[in-house]
């Protein structure tokens, strides 16, 4: 399909944004894009990876945290004149920020992007890339809608994204909100584009620095691939049926259980005779109260490294004890496809983590 549409993308050098941009440019050879560039070097690297596709991309220096995104007046007018869809993928995905810091980028930043979008003359869609974990501490079946915030959140990232969603729904824009789960790899190859909290937690367990986690072996823990997420966003951006829809880009009921995820990890690690020789015991999946006691004991004892390890896990690991299944009915109906089975990429992802030593090999090569 071809068009003369122009998409405005934030976060185009990020994990999701870059892949969305590539898909859109590949899928529609006539499509052109504005990308908001905050970090010029990161964009240069991203545009290099895009190759010839980058010729149809206009980089615009700016920052979502600034009013008007920091765009010059003429540039802003051009964006407002030509843009038919906005994909807002820029975010601060760190779980450990203060709420004010997270809001500054994720809530206020979304407000600034929505403000520009509201001035666009021919806007078909405002696509907000949120997170499935706006569900926060809620448990059970999580529907693809505003489920409220009564349950609270595990970290400031989730809360700031929830608040951004709420603002977008009330904005009067032709919005679609997509909520990806935790992205653990690109696809079935297991290739890891970006190390995140799940990978860092796995590293802690692999090193034997933590040996228990809260939860239950039967609880589901949702992860997803970036290729599925990017493909879905690219397809939904101009899908009329997706208007005013909230869409979970998650494994949903296909999610593996915590027991399956943990067992697979230890099985993969045990393939290495050197690691096996250490006799690292499999992490115990225990109730939240016992884990909290362990956490408290470590925090009180003042051991710097172990405290740092547990602090780094604290912004993420409570989710393991908050069982939830993300409903994907809307996503599957709109995309006419199911999300990939996590069993097809979880093990390859684990092997990739080992092969590149949790991203350190890649960094050294770069």
């Amino acid at each position: 399909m071809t068009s003369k549409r122009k998409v405005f993308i934030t976060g185009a050098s990020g994990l999701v944004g870059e892949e969305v941009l590539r898909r859109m440019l590949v899928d529609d050879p006539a499509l052109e894009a504005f990308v908001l560039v905050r970090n010029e070097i990161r964009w240069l690297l991203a545009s290099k990876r895009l190759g010839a596709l980058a010729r149809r991309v206009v980089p615009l220096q700016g920052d979502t945290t600034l009013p008007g995104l920091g765009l010059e007046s003429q540039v802003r007018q051009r964006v407002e004149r030509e843009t038919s869809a906005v994909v807002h993928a820029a975010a601060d995905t760190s779980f450990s920020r203060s709420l004010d810091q997270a809001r500054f980028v994720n809530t206020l930043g979304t407000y600034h992007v929505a403000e520009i979008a509201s001035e666009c003359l021919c806007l078909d869609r405002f696509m907000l890339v949120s997170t499935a974990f706006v569900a926060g501490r809620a448990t059970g079946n999580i529907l693809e809608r505003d489920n409220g915030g009564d349950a609270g959140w595990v970290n400031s990232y989730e809360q700031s994204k929830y608040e951004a969603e709420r603002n977008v729904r009330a904005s009067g824009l032709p919005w679609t909100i997509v909520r990806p789960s935790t992205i653990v790899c690109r696809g079935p190859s297991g290739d890891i584009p970006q190390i995140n909290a799940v990978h860092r937690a796995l590293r802690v367990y692999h090193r034997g620095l933590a040996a228990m986690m809260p939860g239950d072996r039967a609880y589901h823990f949702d992860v997803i691939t970036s290729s599925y997420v990017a493909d879905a966003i690219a397809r939904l951006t101009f899908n009329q049926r997706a208007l005013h829809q909230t869409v979970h880009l998650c494994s949903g009921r296909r999610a593996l259980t915590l027991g399956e995820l943990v067992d697979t990890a230890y099985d993969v690690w045990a393939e290495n005779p050197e690691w096996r020789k250490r006799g690292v015991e499999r992490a115990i999946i225990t109730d939240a109260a016992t884990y909290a006691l362990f956490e408290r004991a470590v925090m009180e004892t003042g051991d710097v490294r172990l405290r740092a390890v547990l602090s780094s896990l604290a912004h993420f690991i409570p989710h393991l004890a908050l069982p939830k299944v993300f409903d994907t009915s809307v996503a599957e109906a709109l995309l006419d496809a199911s999300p990939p089975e996590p069993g097809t990429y979880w093990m390859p992802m684990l092997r990739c983590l080992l092969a590149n030593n949790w991203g350190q090999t890649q960094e050294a090569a770069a």
Partner: protein
Amino acid sequence: MPFAKLNGQSTPAIAAINYAFPEGLRTVGELADERLLKSSAETMESFGFGNVHVALTETPYDLAVIAAKKLLEESRIDPASVGLLIYGGTPGSMAFAPSEGAESAAAGLCTMSRFKYPSTRLQYDLDLPNASTFALDQLACTTLLAAVRIARSLCLTEGIERALCVSSEFFPANAGREAIFNCTSDAACAVLVERNGLRNRLVSATTVTKGYYWDVDSLRDEIVASYFPTARHVLHRTIADAGWEPSDVDWVIPHNVSMRSWEILSGLVRLPRARLFTQNIVRHGHTLAGDNFINYRDALDGGCIEPGQRVVLFSYGFGAHWTGIAVEA
């Protein structure tokens, strides 16, 4: 592993336990004032510690003799019936030095003094003419559990009627009293194992050794992390090897590490009926020489444990060893 019965013999059992603490007593506050703790007194108190016993004039050997003599006197057995003496704890010439002289005594290990063995002297001083002796080392807080396990095996395989296991440990005067958030006492403990006992029968024992953790200083974080899952594994295996279900266990007799760590381990192990004997943590702190048996004796004396009840003793020793023993009281 489960203790297999050989040719219909009775299961070997613990026939007697006795122990000795030095006269010196310090509160954790006093230890903190003397800079013998790494953590604050408040932290140690919140972990359940109150007092520890500190040897000022007594040597480890003195304590071993006191504990063993008390046991022999109390049990009124014929000393000639003891066929084996297993000694564990403070090594060689250091066993004969008081805490102030411990460091210089260590130098004696490079001279003929190294052959001054506390185990053989103990055999002589206790007048155990038929007891062959050997010593256990490098098992830290699992030493006495290992001694009992070996004694039990040798009773069965060599027909030994009685085996006396003695362990004595102390810290040199300036060595500090804290080992990874545990307050430690000096003490000695003696356990008599009999080939044919009806009470306190040794039903099973499990030991897991993980040599990876041999370097205690540099692998401290990994040791803290590995402690709990391995402890759970060993406790479950000890119970299974005894032919028991987790719900069969009446008592867990701990080593006196922090209450907090036992609360955590209890949450992980899930023995629905089991009670944990923790009274001695505040009274004595952690003794390398034999917490479990000191506690077991006190629990029996206090009427906590009734005949026939199912009891699991568990300890961890740096190095690293995790040991559990199942006993039918």
